[in-house]
């Protein structure tokens, strides 16, 4: 009872089919490709998908096909899990987080593919749930490490309005390896060919022409009209609705029943289920099915029956009485229960349509739990809401349902709903206590961006007598965190102290860690970094004792952020971050924390100029298969390296991957992406592109984000200066806007915390210097100043850049050459050591123009690649350097002075060296070193 055989031959799509096939196999640098076919209903999308899949399968591609359901509330990842289930692999729950689930699904997909390329076909994507869309983007970004192509069909009608796919497609189609094919109806000749194929050669030209006019080239309609023609039926109708209705009327009663039943079902409808739904004797049932298939309504497959076309269901829906419909659904629900189905989603759907809310409720609740197990919080939230709709006010479990509904709404970003549900919950006599309500309300309000009201709510929690000291500790810790975000450091510090005091009695480790972190940052921002550091270090100790992954991850994250952020203690920050990641990895927990810690380490390494090491760290982190924001963070970090190394292709690839993930939403990362785009464009001499990226960035930067403004303004001015230097034109309005931004920064910096001020100073110097370049002043002084500031911040890259420009300006002025030459050579050595190829090339070009020889790069700075037999192979580049000094017999203090790092940091390095070399004294360590070199 297969359907494929009796399809009319495919008409008028040869070119499209070829093009799609080529596009699908022409994967981008990430190893993936996608084609989205859009078009009106009946235009032939599903058919095209089928034909393409067949062709590729024949060519040796592994094909996996899934269809999205139109039942409104599908379970998370439905089409993909369904496709996998058909291959015998079931994914019902995964421990860990949403990322672990994505990784698990990718693994299944890799298993299906084996050595072959994989084609994932998704039909009716307009009905896909949020998690499916996210999985799709994850896969297309190459994060799942599956080399695959995606072929999906989307009904054009549903892309109007607010459909999220509309935006996703708009973003994706900018990428080179994504195509959106808008499938047009057949033309006159095509329609004629179809008509002839169905009704035979004897068809009058004018009849065929009428079919074209009436169908508008829609193959579905044309096909049916042609059948009418062939069968000599009087043409009564040209809307699909009418065509179908007249056809249904012609069916015998059994077949009629079959069609109606399948239309009301969730496809595929298994035979035993259908048999229970229709109370027909077996032979009549079989006959009915045969008939429905013969009349091209139903198709049969090993897993069950489907309508040949879902449109039929839409048409029939209006044809049956609501009562009939309800009966069918009730029978479905009963049949599913009788056959022992665990498909809660389907059961919930049928009971609900059957008008039996009480019986639907348990299935809906089960579906909600199942969705949560698959981290589909948006789906879970919809089920919880549905459960509430189904339950009455008096029912006993309403309170629990409300609690779930509120929390799931909060988790999936439905803030308004979360707050409304919480109010209902608060009004329940058996609801949670006053204190918990305040705490939750405050959390929800803060998430909704209503910080003023959130603050009041936390204060209430702190004031009510009903709250235990433990609960108050939680409130104070959260409040401290909120105040910190609002930049009220003194208040944050006070609340954090209060939290610590309260938590001493009976607080949780989580509260202690949160409060310590807030206190640490507030102290650091208020110029007492050591006090701040001491508090967070203490928190790390507490977390280590508790051993809970969240506590550990959180504490290490805060410590690393404090060190690499406001304290600018980059090396130590990197060490801490790596140690934290290592600890969690040894425990085999906290995947997301590990990734975030490694991202901090990589960014720190980038800033101190240890790029090769940064690349290694990112490689390790990527092996954790991060997803979502974590993945974007790492991709951006890696892309920054590629830009520095001058590997344009790799940089483009990572930017594409970032754009793919971000097509699903997420504003936080757009700005870093734009600065990278600007940086990349500048190396390629594409100044207009750099300018556009900067302008967009500036319009989207919050006015309190001074650091980002600094980076963007510098990039912008640099792009103008570079355009000018290349003989291009400077855009005066862009320069004017950029100077306005610099002024805004100057005003803002007056109120900023000292650590922020220090960073901004660095960018302001760079901006001032670029302006002098735009104005042809050839003034080395602003550049010298910038170089000094960045030296002090221990960031060799911007410092070296400033040195290059300083030398350039001096040469142009014909000033003293010796200082300029020294600066240029220093810059060159730095660039070489980091592996910054385009930068080094530019220095070399300036040197050539000025007839300066740069000499050999500093041999010490280049880190030799570790090899297996080398006992020092386990050490990082920096650790080797420290060890070399140790072997010279220097003290930590002396080493610190020589390497421009703090004595404390040297101590940490030495500790690590001991650990890694498994030695306990400096003498032993020196011996290993001397034995190896």
């Amino acid at each position, binding site marked *: 009872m297969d359907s494929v055989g009796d399809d009319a031959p495919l008409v008028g799509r040869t070119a499209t089919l070829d093009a799609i096939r080529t596009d699908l196999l022409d994967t981008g640098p990430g190893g993936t490709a996608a084609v989205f076919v859009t078009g009106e209903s009946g235009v032939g999308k599903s058919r095209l998908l089928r034909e393409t899949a067949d062709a590729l399968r024949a060519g040796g591609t592994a094909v996996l096909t899934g269809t999205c359901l139109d039942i409104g509330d599908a379970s998370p990842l439905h089409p993909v899990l369904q496709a996998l289930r058909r291959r015998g692999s079931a994914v019902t729950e995964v421990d860990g987080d949403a990322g672990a689930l994505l990784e698990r699904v990718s693994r299944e997909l890799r298993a299906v593919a084996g050595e072959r390329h994989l084609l994932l076909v998704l039909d009716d994507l307009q009905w896909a749930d949020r998690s499916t869309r996210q999985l799709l983007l994850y896969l297309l970004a190459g994060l799942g490490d599956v080399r695959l192509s995606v072929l999906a069909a989307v009904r054009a009608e549903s892309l109007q309005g607010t459909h999220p796919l509309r935006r996703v497609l708009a973003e994706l189609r900018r990428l080179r390896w994504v195509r959106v094919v808008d499938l047009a109806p057949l033309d006159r000749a095509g329609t004629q060919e179809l008509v002839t194929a169905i009704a035979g050669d004897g068809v009058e030209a004018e009849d065929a022409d009428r079919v074209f006019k009436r169908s508008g080239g829609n193959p579905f309609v044309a096909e049916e009209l042609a059948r009418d023609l062939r069968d000599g039926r009087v043409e009564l109708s040209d809307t699909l609705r009418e065509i179908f209705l007249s056809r249904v009327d012609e069916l015998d009663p059994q077949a009629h029943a079959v069609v109606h039943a399948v239309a009301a079902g969730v496809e595929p409808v298994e035979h035993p289920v259908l048999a229970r739904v229709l109370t027909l004797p077996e032979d009549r049932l079989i006959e009915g099915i045969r008939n429905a298939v013969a009349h091209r309504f139903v198709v049969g497959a090993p897993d069950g029956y489907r309508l040949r076309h879902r449109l039929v269901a839409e048409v029939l829906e209006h044809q049956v009485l609501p009562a009939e419909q309800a009966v069918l659904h009730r029978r479905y629900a009963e049949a599913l229960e009788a056959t022992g189905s665990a498909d809660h989603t389907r059961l919930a759907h049928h009971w609900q349509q059957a008008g039996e809310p009480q019986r639907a409720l348990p299935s809906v609740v089960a579906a909600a739990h199942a969705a949560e197990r698959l981290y589909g919080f948006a789906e879970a939230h919809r089920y919880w809401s549905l459960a509430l709709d189904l339950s009455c006010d008096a029912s006993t479990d309403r309170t629990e349902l409300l609690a779930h509904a509120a929390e799931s709404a909060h988790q999936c970003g439905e803030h308004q709903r979360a707050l409304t549900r919480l109010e209902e919950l608060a009004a329940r006599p058996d609801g949670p206590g006053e204190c918990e309500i305040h705490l939750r309300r405050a959390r929800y309000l803060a998430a909704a*961006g209503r910080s003023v009201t959130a603050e009041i709510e936390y204060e209430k929690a702190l004031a009510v007598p009903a709250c235990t000291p433990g609960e108050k500790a939680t409130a104070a810790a959260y409040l401290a965190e909120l105040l910190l975000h609002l930049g009220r450091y003194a208040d944050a510090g006070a609340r954090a102290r209060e939290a610590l005091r309260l938590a001493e009695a009976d607080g949780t480790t989580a509260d202690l860690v949160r409060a310590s972190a807030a206190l640490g940052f507030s102290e650091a921002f208020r110029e007492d970094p050591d006090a701040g550091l001491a508090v967070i270090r203490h928190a790390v100790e507490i977390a280590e004792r508790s051993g809970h992954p969240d506590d550990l991850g959180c504490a290490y994250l805060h410590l690393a952020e404090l060190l690499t952020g406001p304290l600018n203690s980059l090396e130590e920050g990197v060490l801490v971050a790596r140690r934290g990641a290592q600890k969690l990895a040894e425990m085999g927990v906290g995947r997301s924390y590990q990734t975030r810690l490694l991202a901090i380490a990589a960014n720190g390494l980038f800033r101190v100029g240890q790029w090769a090491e940064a690349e290694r760290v990112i490689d390790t982190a990527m092996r954790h298969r991060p997803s979502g924001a974590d993945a974007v963070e790492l991709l951006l970090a890696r892309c920054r390296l590629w830009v520095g190394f001058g590997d344009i292709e790799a940089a483009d690839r990572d930017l594409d991957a970032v754009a793919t993930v971000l097509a699903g*939403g997420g*504003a936080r990362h757009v700005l870093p992406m734009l600065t990278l785009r600007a940086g990349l464009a500048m190396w390629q001499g594409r100044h207009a592109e750099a300018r556009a990226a900067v302008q967009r960035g*500036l319009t989207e930067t*919050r006015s309190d984000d001074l650091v980002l403004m600094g980076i963007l303004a510098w990039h912008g001015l640099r792009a103008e200066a570079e355009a000018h230097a290349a003989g291009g034109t400077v855009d005066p309005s862009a320069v004017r806007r950029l100077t306005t*931004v610099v002024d805004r920064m100057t005003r803002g910096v007056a109120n900023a915390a000292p650590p922020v001020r220090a960073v901004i100073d660095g960018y302001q110097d760079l901006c001032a210097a670029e302006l002098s370049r735009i104005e042809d002043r050839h003034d080395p002084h602003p550049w010298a100043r910038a170089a000094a500031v960045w030296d002090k911040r221990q960031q060799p890259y911007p410092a070296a850049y400033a040195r290059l420009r300083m030398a350039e300006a001096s040469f142009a002025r014909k000033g003293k050459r010796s200082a300029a030459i020294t600066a240029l050579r220093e810059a060159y050595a730095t660039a070489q050591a980091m592996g910054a190829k385009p930068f080094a090339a530019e220095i070399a070009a300036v040197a050539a123009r000025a007839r300066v020889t740069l000499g050999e790069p500093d041999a010490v700075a280049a880190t030799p690649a570790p090899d297996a037999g080398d006992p020092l192979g386990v050490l990082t580049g920096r650790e080797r350097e420290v060890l070399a000094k140790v072997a010279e017999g220097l003290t930590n203090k002396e080493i610190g002075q020589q390497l421009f790092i703090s004595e404390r940091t040297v101590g940490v390095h030495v500790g690590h060296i001991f650990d890694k070399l498994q030695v306990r004294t400096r003498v032993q360590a020196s011996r290993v070193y001397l034995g190896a070199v």
Partner: protein
Amino acid sequence: MTVSVWGPVHQDMTALLTGQPDDVPAVVDQLTKLQDILERVPPLLCSNPLADFNKLYLHITTTVLDRLYEGRFADPAFLSRLDVEFAARYFEALRHWSQGSAACPRVWSVLFHRVGGPDCRPLPSAAAGVNAHINFDLPFALVTTFDYFGSDPVDDGDQHADYLQINEIFADAIPGLRRGYLEKWQLLIDTINGDLDDWWQGETIEYARNVAWRNGQRLWSVRHDLPATAKERERLDSNAAALGRLLLSPLGALLQ
């Protein structure tokens, strides 16, 4: 489908509309180019009603861009995205119209139909465009914007405040829609029947934008339900189209 709805500038128009701006500077750029093209559409040239609207819209968007550069919004990423999504709907309506597609919202068709004449007063024309854009496009743009940020339209937050700032810009730009004209407009509204009247109780842009915010919230709540969204879309389109027709009728001239 007519061969070329835009006459001699059809090609320029089609070429321009293939661009899909994704930031506010690019939207301003596209609107500027569009203005140039619209003023070349015969027979009305500079006095075609769509050019009147586009000019106003360009002015408003430029002001938004200036404010973005000045750092006047609390959440500029949100506002930029909204601006882009908002403009995308206008460009898409134009695209549909150019292709003679039935998907062109009626509320826009009402205005587009008048591009070929007869002549219309600039203020009602601009108002008809504003009507289409705010009463129909804006709620959808709000929903897609919030969906992008993974959050929802919450009253009294930063985003709501930024959103309301746009009211000022509109009010400054259309003095004609401010107080003095309200009675006349009320008179107009009174002449037409029920549904519209309920819906359009207040008349200032400020009011309309709040209606849009609320419509946005309503759409948000049904956004997973395709039939319900389609129904809502239909409702918004027919209401706004009725008002648009009214604005462009001889009665609309009263506003001038």
